[in-house]
């Protein structure tokens, strides 16, 4: 059951991105879409709109990049609870440290090992 919800929510989040890309009259790059998703995810999380999506969709809501924005904001908010103003600066990145570290190390290793095809 959790698989079906992850599929539906994750699929829906990606579908919205595709429609935005196709219906925007000028060309939008991958960078713009990803930046938009992180920012919107963070704002939605701050307004309390993203957590319900995570409760229903699980990985379907956390794996899209809007989930990274959500993770940052929730990290900051829980950081404030435990460390006050210091938590504003420490909470977000420490809550997502595994993902950020993984992106840097795996990204680096693969870029060193492999060469572009064609």
């Amino acid at each position, binding site marked *: 059951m*959790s*698989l079906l*919800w992850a*599929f*539906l929510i*994750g*699929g*829906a*989040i*990606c*579908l919205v*991105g*595709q*429609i*935005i*890309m*196709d219906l925007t009259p000028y060309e939008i790059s*991958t*960078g713009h*879409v*990803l*930046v938009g998703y*992180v*920012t919107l995810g*963070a704002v939605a999380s*701050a307004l309390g709109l993203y957590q319900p999506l995570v409760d229903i*969709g*699980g*990985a*379907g809501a*956390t*794996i*899209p*990049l*809007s*989930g*990274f*924005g959500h993770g*940052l*904001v929730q*990290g*900051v*908010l829980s*950081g404030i609870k435990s460390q006050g103003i210091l938590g*504003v*600066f420490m909470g*977000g990145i420490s809550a997502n440290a*595994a*993902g950020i570290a*993984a*992106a840097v190390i*795996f*990204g680096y*290793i*693969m*870029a*060193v090992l*492999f*060469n*572009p095809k064609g």
Partner: protein
Amino acid sequence: MATFTDPEKTSRLKEQMDQSRKQYEQEKYKKITQKHVPKVSILKNAVNAFWVGGLICAVAQTLFNIFSNAGFTVKEANAIVAMIMIFLGAFLTGIGVYDSIAKVGGAGAMVPVTGFANSIVAPAMEFKKEGYVFGIGAKMFSIAGPVLVYGIVTSIIVGLIAFTIM
């Protein structure tokens, strides 16, 4: 209706009519293609984005269920799943498979973290010849950099607002 007795005039008129009919047909065809081709591909792209993105998330959920059943907390399981998905996205980009997934899935392949990993590895590989510092080291962040900047800036602004309100 006027009657045309002059044969030259009639043939000229016929030519003009033929031409304008041709023009009309061409315009009509243009309008039809403009109307239909994008609509069909928009629908097709949307469906592809949905199932590719959904499938990637379902894979992540499967991993999450495995690790959470193995006794990890939600936070730990989320971190492990993110790491595995990023590894997969980076590896599949390296061996050239993720490109084919992205060609079908569009945003469905870009928006999940696997796409984030792809956006790190692809430019880094491409600019490897510019060196390990300004090639790989810098180009890894050509898309990931802006994502981190806007994500962190937004979350800190939210944090400062929340801190003042609390």
